[in-house]
Structure formats: C-alpha cells, structure tokens
C-alpha cells in the first residue's frame, strides 16, 4: 500500500514530527515552586556535604571470587549536596537538596559498563511530602511523590529542641546520671573508655541495634544494626565537635552490605561523608 493513498497517516506523522530527537528532552514548564526557603523555621539545619562511596568484598579472602561483572558494578562514586531542612511550628517541613560539583569529581567515559546512575535532577524540594524535581535551569522535571514524615514526628523533634533552648544547659554530670538511670531501668548498656557507651536494643524479630552514645557530646553518634543471627547489616558513625545540641558534624561513615550480583559474595559499601559546612539553628 502506498502511503500517499492514506493522507490521515501523513497528518498524524506531521503532528508527531515536531522537533523530536533521539534522546529524552527533560525540559519542563518553568517551575513556580523553585522558591527561596521560607523563613519561619523553628529548627533549621543546613549543610554542604561531599560523599564518596566505595565497594569491596566484605571478606578480603573472597575477593578473588568476584566476577568481572561484579567488579564492574563496584565502581566508586562521589557527589556533593547542599541540604537544607526547615521544620515549622505546625509540624510541616521544607527540605531542599541540591547537587553541587564535588571537589574531586570521579568521572567515567559515557557508556562505561556498570557506570553508576546519575540523578536526572539538580535539585529536589520536599514541601511537606510533595516532591518537586528540578533541572539545572530551575525548571520542573517532574512533580511526584507522596513520601511524608508524620507531623507528630516533626513536632516531637521540635519539642526536643525547644526544651533544650528554654531550659538550663545539660551538664556532663546530668548526662551521666541519666544514662545510669536508664541503665538501672532496663537500658542494656556497656560503658567503654573515652566516654563511649554502647546501648543495645532487641527488636521483636530478634534482630538488634546497638546505639553508640558519646557522653562527651551528649548524643548518639552512631548505630550498628544486626540481624537475628548477629550478622552486621549496616552501621553509621558520626564524628563531630561540640556538645549537643550545639554540635557541628565533621564527617560520617556509613557501611551497608549487599550481595554481589553474580558471585553472591558479600560486599561492603562504605560511604564517607565530609561536611564542608554544618549550621544548626533553633
């Protein structure tokens, strides 16, 4: 059948023809939500953090079992984000996260096998659970998502900060006494040198977590999570200066474990976050 005999198809093709390229065109409408942070935050945290992720065999002796594919999927990557978290009096919140250029970007040629995913957005705004993803021009790529932190949780965090703001400072003695009191009343703690306390909590599924509490900093500075068999699943540890709530994060180490795709070897992914800036206002 000759196409010239079916003009409606040509009309359709004409309509479909405009300016298409092989690749996606993610340009969207000009975004109206790309607004400056509102100022009525009762708790506001901003930081500029660079994170580097690297993967290796959890057990170095098993590294030889990793296949070529497994190794191709273990490429290191890094990113730098500017984060801003604003909690409002009514329990609502506004969180923005913007990608910046790392100090030492790790770049691979386009098409590198196993190349880590690159986010398609430059900035994301979470306005009380509504996510808006923006490109480098500040235009909305898409507006989607229904992930919401419950208002009650935000309010309880605000209440903690308000309590600390209005009451006399917590002393080292106060903190020690409270840890002792909690231990007497059932908190499973182990005291270590240098002011470190490990507090274990068993979960209902027999997994358990150990909180690392720094008595000098008056706060939990890490957590290790174990499954029901006692195998470490993930951990994070924070290095900071100051005393809670007036602290400045310096860096954070996070470790996760996953199984390699092909060999099934247990892999450890370490993420190191260096905080370039860290400002907490309340």
């Amino acid at each position, binding site marked *: 059948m000759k196409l010239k005999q079916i003009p409606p198809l040509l009309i359709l093709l004409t309509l479909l023809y405009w300016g298409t390229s092989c690749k996606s065109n993610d340009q969207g409408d000009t975004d109206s939500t790309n607004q400056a942070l509102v100022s009525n935050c009762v708790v506001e945290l901003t930081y500029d953090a660079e994170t580097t992720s690297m993967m290796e065999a959890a057990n170095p002796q098993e590294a030889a079992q990793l296949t070529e594919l497994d190794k191709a999927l273990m490429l290191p990557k890094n990113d730098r984000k500017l984060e801003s978290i604003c909690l409002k009096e009514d329990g609502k919140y506004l969180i923005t996260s913007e990608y910046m250029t790392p100090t030492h970007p790790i770049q691979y040629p386009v098409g590198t096998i196993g190349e880590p995913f690159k986010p398609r957005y430059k900035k994301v705004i979470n306005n009380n659970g509504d996510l808006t993803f923006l490109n480098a021009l500040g235009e909305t790529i898409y507006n989607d998502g229904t*992930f919401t932190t419950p208002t009650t949780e935000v309010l309880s965090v605000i209440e903690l900060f308000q309590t600390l703001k209005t009451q006399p400072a917590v002393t080292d003695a106060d903190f020690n006494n409270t840890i002792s009191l909690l231990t007497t009343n059932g908190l499973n703690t182990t005291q270590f040198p240098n002011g470190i306390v490990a507090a274990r909590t068993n979960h209902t599924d027999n997994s358990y977590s150990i909180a690392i509490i720094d008595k000098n900093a008056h*706060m939990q500075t890490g957590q290790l999570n174990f499954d029901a068999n006692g195998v470490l699943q993930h951990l994070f540890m924070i290095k900071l200066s100051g005393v809670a709530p007036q602290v400045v994060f310096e*860096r954070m180490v996070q470790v996760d474990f996953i199984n390699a795709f092909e060999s099934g070897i247990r892999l450890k992914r370490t993420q190191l976050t260096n905080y370039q800036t860290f400002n907490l206002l309340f």
Partner: protein
Amino acid sequence: MKKIFLIFGLLCLSGVVHLYAQTPRKTLWLSGPGLTSPQWLNTIGIAQMESYKFDQVNTWQYYNNTNANDIPTWAQQFNTQMANAGQTDVLGIGHDAGGLILRYMAQLQSTNGLNAIILDGVPNQGGAVFSKLTPTSDGILSEAQRLVNNALNYRTQAQNCVACRTIEATQSYINTFAVSSIADYYRQLKPGSPLITNLQTPTIPYAVIWGNENDDALGLTRLMSSWSNAGLQGQDREYLECMGKELEQRLVSANQNFAISTLRAIAGLAGAVSKLKLSQPGTVGAVIESTLNAVATGLRGLYDLKNEFREILECELVHQALNAKWTLMNFPYNAITETITVPNCYSLISCDDCWTQYASDHDDQILGYCLSVCNEQICDGTTTATVTYLVPEPNDALYTKTEQSLAGAAKTYEAISCNHMQESFWLYPTVRDAFTDLFNGGAGAAFVVPK
C-alpha cells in the same frame, strides 16, 4: 536562425531535465523481523512530507509474515517479483536483516533492477548477540534468558523494586527468541553462519549507517523502551524514566527521613536529660519509660531506614547488572585503569572492623577503644586510588560498530545517540541527516531520490 534553434534546444533540454527530476525513484524499503526492526512507515511518511519523490516495490507479502522464509528465499522472491515487473533503477533501503536480504538480492545478480542499497543498522558481519539470544538447542535456556532469570532472582531481595516491570518486559522480549521458528531465523544472522559467510561485498553502490547508542550504560533498557514503542516513534526513555523516578523518589525520601532522624539524634538524649531534670518526683518514672521507648523506637526506625537504603541500592544494582551483563556478553570492551582522588581515611581502620574483632574476642575493653578511635580518622586531604573500568566498543545495543560496518561503502554515517530500534526513524536527527545527505546526492548519484 541558429540562435532560435539554440534557444529551442535549451528549452527542450530544460524540460527533459525538469521532467526527469520529477520522476519518482523506485524504492524497496525492507525492515527486519519485528523483534529487531520497526517497519519503515514512519520514515516513509516523513520522507514524502519532505517532498522526496519515490514509488515503492510491493512488500505486502513480506511484511505479512517476515519470519516465514529465510533470507535467501526472500531475496529470490523479490528478485523474481522485480524482474517480472521490469523494475529498473531501484534503490534498496534496508534495516537490520532487511539489509541482508538486499545484499543477497544483489549477489544473486538477477535482472531485479536493484542498483544501489542503503544498509542501515545491518549486521553486515553477523550479530554475535544471537549466539546469546538463541538457545543452543530446544529446552535449554539461552544465555540471555539465564541472565534475566538471575536478575529476577536477585531482585526478590528488593521487594519493592518495580520500575514499571522493566525486567519482566526484558524477559518477555528475550524469551521470544527461544521460540523455535524465530530462533531458526535469527541463527542465520550469527557470525560464521552459512549466510553471513557466503555474503559477498555488493558490486552495486552501497552506503552504511551505523547506530551508536552512547548516552549511558543502559543500552538494553533503552532498547526495550524503543522496541515497545516501535509502532510509534521508537522513544527510548519510558522504562528509564520509570526506573529513575522510583529510585530517585525512594532515595530522596530515605535521605530526608534520615536527616530528620539525625536532628532527633542531636536533640534526643540531651532533651531527655533536660526533661528528667525538670520532672517532679512523681513523674520521673514516666519520663524514664518514655525515654526508653523513644530510644528503642528511634533505633528500630533507623534500622528500618537503613534496610530501605539497602533495598534501593539492590534495586539500582539489579538494573545496572542487567545492562552491564548484556554489554559484557555481547560486545568487545577495553579495560581502562585510571587514578582517582578519594578521601584518604579509607586506608585506616573502619568501625565495622571493631565489631569483627569483637565477634572473635568479645573483649569489651578493646571494643571500646576501637569505637572511640575508628571514626577519628584523618580525613582531611585526599589520597589516590586506582580504579579499572570497562568501556565497550561503540554499539547500538544490539550490534557493534564492527558488525554494522562494511568496507567499500560509498559513504558511512554514524547515527549517534540512537539505539538499534531508532535507526529506522527519520524523527531522529542523525538518522534523518544521513538519509537526506544520501537522497540529495552526498554519496553519489546512485542514492539520489528526487524532490
């Protein structure tokens, strides 16, 4: 008088030229089977809209069941059909296996009238991919089928990793190649098959367009999108967008919940101490209880959140793995080693090593010291690390550049940023540019289609 004849002659000549320019070129547009090649309808329509004048050889029988015959049989049938019709000056335009039929027609040297061919995304040297897509024998899974099964098995660890069921769509596509009649057809296209081995370099002018899907390392996923959109415009981004959205949304949500949990961690214990200090004697017990509950809830919350992070990582990995393995098993690649800059604290003790040690000696004292120093690493400054990564030969997600190439072409064009399914759509600039150059005479008069 001479002048009058001269003017008359020029007028006649210009009329003949004009008349000739308006004569449509006879063309034969052949795609491959639907699994690896969209039909040319979209492009034919656009070429006509752009005023290219051509007629088409009747291909109804071919498109009615492309897999019905093998390539030599189709070539013979077209030759007979065109010879009987007395066709002359036919331009053959082939995508995928359609190009191999054209080459075979030319090789048979019949009076088919075929006098130039455009080979667009054609596996001129055979497609190694079919060694992986077709089973070695009935009842045995192909290597590609096993790959997808592995991906689906791995994905079960990431329970909520849906991403538009991208992997299932890939499985459905790959399973079709195991159907006996389809597998038989595509086995012809393997390198070293009798067909590929016996194909000779065409003696008529030919041009080559080769696709290069070079946008990222997700060629297979792009190919799947384009295949599912083959009846439209071969768009390659739907599965990627689904996958990207799912990963981005979950990761953003998890990261932001972690940020709020961090705020709770900063103020949690100090706030509890403050509340205890303010408590009336009779209410201390209640405050302690609520603090203990808050500690347990907070720890569980972070436990679940970290599991969510791991699941997102697994979801990301399974999609990367599917694409990476597809590339590794189908295309040659080079290993490149480079030095990168990383924070220098990786070479020092990590906190999980403290717990590994603790698991073996249960020495609280050592654990305490270890924990107190493990995060005190000197992370100021950087160090270097060696990383090896693999870069494949340029390909269109189905065939490599080498497989698509054919020495001696009048001109060779690169359809950059296009996967195999997109090569037969003029909608894509690099494809359209190649064709318009050919039709306008950029590779010689043999490829001209008049306007």
